[in-house]
């Protein structure tokens, strides 16, 4: 992620609007998060679904990849819920 200064219209006062900056920050974080998700998902699903690489992805491999993607996102959500609960439990103890 680069410096934010060059991405924003500054207006005549030269001040950057907090709201605009925060919108861009959130978008950039969301994009990075999606990229991370896709990279890890691709790694896992390639390992699971592609045996000896052929000259194309055949139908069974395509179906496997699709199912694997769904399961990966299910797993991600389960992990997210569990981690969130654990954090709340730990905070309640303090």
């Amino acid at each position: 992620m680069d410096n934010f200064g060059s991405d924003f219209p500054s207006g005549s006062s030269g001040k950057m609007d907090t709201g605009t900056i925060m919108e861009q920050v959130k978008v950039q974080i969301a994009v990075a998060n999606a990229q991370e998700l896709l990279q890890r998902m691709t790694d896992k699903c390639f390992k699971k679904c592609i045996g000896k690489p052929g000259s194309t992805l055949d139908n069974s491999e395509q179906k496997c990849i699709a199912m694997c993607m769904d399961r990966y996102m299910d797993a991600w959500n389960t992990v997210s819920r569990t981690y969130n609960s654990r954090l709340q439990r730990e905070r309640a103890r303090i």
Partner: protein
Amino acid sequence: MADFGSSFDMPSSSSSETADAAELQRLIAVEQQKAQFQAQVHNFTDVCWDKCMPDKPSSKLDSRTETCLASCVERFIDTTLSITNRFTQMVQKGAH
């Protein structure tokens, strides 16, 4: 994941600009915390997928797998805490 750094050098010639900078810093710190949470979820999912998912992807997550994933997260955190605590003791005793 981005490193926003802990300091935000903004010119503040007036008190309202200083307040803006402080507010921005606070808002960014909140987003940074959320991003760290997401990063951890990616890590846990990576590790726990290998531990818990059956060889053939299924049409939905069965309850055994769900339980495994949840336990995996909890035990991984417990392991991290164990290691941190014991390592701290080791360092305090002068071992490396």
